[in-house]
C-alpha cells in the first residue's frame, strides 16, 4: 500500500474500506510498516501497539463482512496522546515514573473511539504532563517535526500531530489547555480542533487544569475533524459543512493579531484576503489582549494544576522542576479573583461574538520552532506567553477553535491560522474552516519523510 494512500483523509479511507477496495488489516499493516520505517526519526510514540492493532483490524474486518460496520471510523487507524486512559495499557502522561500506571478502565474518549470501531495504534509522545508547547520530553525524548526533523512539532500534543502529518494515523486525539492541540497542528500542517469546554468528555484524561482542560482532534482535513467530533460528542457536525458561507461575519481583533514572525503575518494577511474572496464579511472587533488575560490564566492554570497533581508533587517532588510546586502556594483568594476576572473576559468575548459569527487570528506566532530555543521576532526573543497568545484565550474562555493550514513560510514550514466561535458553535466553525480548505490546496501537501 502506498505512502500516498496513508496520507489520504480519513473520510476517503473510510470510503475505500466501505467499498472493500482495502481492508482494515491491510490499512493497519501498512500503517505499522510506515511507522516502523520513520518512527526512529520522529520519536512520536511512547507505546506502539502493532500486534494489538492488527488483531483489532481483523475483528473490524469480520464485523464489516457480516454487515456490522459501525460508521465512518470503523477500521480506521487512530492514536491517543498518552493522557487518555486505556484499560490494560500503560498511561503515563509523558512521565516515566508513571510507566507502571496501567488503568483498569478506558477514558471516555477511548471508549467512544472503540465504540465507533477505530483501531488504536498506540499512545503518543507529548510534553511531560501535557505542559508546554516545546515538543520536548525529558523522560521520553524530543519529538521531531516530520516536515523537518531538525525542528519541533510544537506541543504538547506533538506526537499526535506528527503522526497525522506523516500518515501514521488518520486521527489522533490530543489535549489542549493553552494551545496543545492547535499549536502542533499549525506547525505540522494538519487540522487541530479544540471544541467547547465540556463538549468532549475529559473523564479518564490525565488532569492538568480541569477548568481549561479540553480533549481535541488532530486530522488531515476539516471534514475529518467533523467526522471525529460526531463520534466523540454525538452531534451533527458534517451536514452543515457545505452550506454557503457568503455573508457570515468574521471578526479580526487587530489589537491582538500583529505579533509573530514576518512569514506568519504574511500568511495571515493572505488568509484574510482569501476569506473575503469566499464571501465572508470581515469586521474589526476588539477583544481582551493576551497580556490582560495571562495573569488570570496562569493563576487558574497553576492553582488547578497544584490541586490535580498535589499527591505526586508531594511523593515525587523531583519530577516537578522549575519551581512548579509553587502552584501549591497560590492563595484561594487569588484563584477566586482570577475566576472573577475570567468571567469578565468571557463577557467581553461574548460582546465581540454578538457582532460576528467567528473570530480569526494566527494560531502560533512562529515557524520552524527549535527545541529549547524560541525564535526572535520584532527585535526580541519570543516567550512562552507569546507562543500561547493566540490559542490560550479560547482555553480560558472555553470557546471552540480550530487551526488549519493557511500557507507555507518555506517548503518545509506550514503556517496555520485559527477560527473560533461562540460556545457550542462547532458546526459553524467547521463550516467556515471547510469552506476555506475546499478553496485551497495547502492540506494536500505532505512532508517528504
Amino acid at each position, binding site marked *: 500500500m502506498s505512502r500516498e494512500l496513508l496520507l489520504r483523509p480519513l473520510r476517503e479511507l473510510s470510503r475505500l474500506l466501505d467499498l472493500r477496495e482495502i481492508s482494515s488489516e491491510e490499512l493497519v499493516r501498512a500503517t505499522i510498516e510506515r511507522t516502523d520505517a520513520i518512527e526512529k526519526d520522529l520519536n512520536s510514540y511512547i507505546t506502539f501497539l502493532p500486534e494489538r492493532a492488527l488483531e483489532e483490524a481483523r475483528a473490524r474486518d469480520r464485523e464489516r463482512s457480516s454487515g456490522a460496520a459501525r460508521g465512518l471510523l470503523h477500521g480506521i487507524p487512530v492514536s491517543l496522546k498518552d493522557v487518555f486512559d486505556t484499560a490494560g495499557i500503560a498511561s503515563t502522561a509523558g512521565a516515566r515514573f508513571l510507566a507502571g500506571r496501567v488503568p483498569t478502565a478506558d477514558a471516555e474518549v477511548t471508549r467512544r473511539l472503540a465504540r465507533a470501531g477505530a483501531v488504536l495504534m498506540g499512545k503518543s509522545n507529548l510534553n511531560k504532563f501535557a505542559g508546554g508547547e516545546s515538543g520536548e520530553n525529558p523522560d521520553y525524548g524530543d519529538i521531531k517535526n516530520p516536515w523537518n526533523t531538525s525542528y519541533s512539532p510544537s506541543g504538547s500534543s506533538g506526537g499526535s500531530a506528527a503522526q497525522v502529518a506523516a500518515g501514521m494515523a488518520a486521527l489522533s486525539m490530543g489535549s489542549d489547555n493553552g494551545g496543545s492541540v492547535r499549536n502542533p497542528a499549525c506547525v505540522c500542517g494538519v487540522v487541530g480542533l479544540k471544541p467547547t469546554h465540556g463538549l468532549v468528555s475529559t473523564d479518564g484524561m490525565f488532569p492538568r487544569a480541569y477548568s481549561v482542560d479540553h480533549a481535541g482532534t488532530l486530522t488531515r482535513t476539516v471534514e475529518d475533524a467533523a467526522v471525529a467530533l460526531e463520534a466523540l460528542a454525538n452531534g451533527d457536525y458534517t451536514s452543515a459543512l457545505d452550506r454557503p458561507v457568503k455573508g457570515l461575519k468574521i471578526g479580526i481583533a487587530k489589537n491582538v493579531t500583529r505579533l509573530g514572525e514576518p512569514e506568519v503575518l504574511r500568511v495571515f494577511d493572505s488568509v484574510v484576503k482569501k476569506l473575503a474572496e469566499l464571501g465572508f464579511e470581515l469586521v474589526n472587533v476588539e477583544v481582551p489582549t493576551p*497580556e490582560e488575560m495571562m495573569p488570570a490564566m496562569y493563576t487558574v492554570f497553576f492553582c488547578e494544576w497544584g490541586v490535580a497533581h498535589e499527591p505526586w508533587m508531594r511523593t515525587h517532588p523531583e519530577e516537578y522542576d*522549575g519551581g512548579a510546586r509553587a502552584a501549591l502556594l497560590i*492563595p484561594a483568594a487569588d484563584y477566586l479573583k482570577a475566576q472573577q476576572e475570567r468571567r469578565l473576559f468571557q463577557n467581553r468575548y461574548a460582546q465581540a461574538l454578538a457582532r460576528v459569527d467567528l473570530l480569526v487570528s494566527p494560531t502560533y506566532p512562529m515557524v520552524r520552532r527549535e527545541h529549547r530555543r524560541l525564535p526572535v521576532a520584532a527585535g526580541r526573543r519570543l516567550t512562552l506567553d507569546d507562543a500561547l497568545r493566540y490559542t490560550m484565550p479560547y482555553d480560558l474562555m472555553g470557546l471552540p477553535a480550530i487551526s488549519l493550514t493557511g500557507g507555507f513560510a518555506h517548503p518545509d514550514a506550514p503556517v496555520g491560522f485559527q477560527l473560533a466561535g461562540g460556545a457550542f458553535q462547532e458546526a459553524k466553525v467547521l463550516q467556515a474552516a471547510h469552506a476555506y480548505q475546499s478553496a485551497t490546496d495547502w492540506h494536500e501537501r505532505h512532508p517528504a519523510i
Partner: protein
Amino acid sequence: MRRREALLSLLGATALPATTATAQDLSPETVRQMMRTLAGLDPLPGEEAGVRAFLLSYRYLHPSDPGVEPASTFDPRPKR
C-alpha cells in the same frame, strides 16, 4: 495590608518595611518557610530559586511589574 505583607507577617520572616515590599523580601529562606508553612512541602535543595522565580513571574507578589496588574490586586471591573 497587602496579602503579600500578610504572608510575611504570618511567617514572621522579616520586619515589614513601611512601604510596599519588593522582590528582595523573597529571600531563599523566606521562600523555604513559605513552602513549609503554607503548603507543607519539604523544599528540595535549590528548589527555592525556581519557586521564587515562579512567584515573581506570575505577578502575584510583585506589584511593580509594568503594564500588568498583579493577580492579588485584580480589579473586577472591565478594562477600558
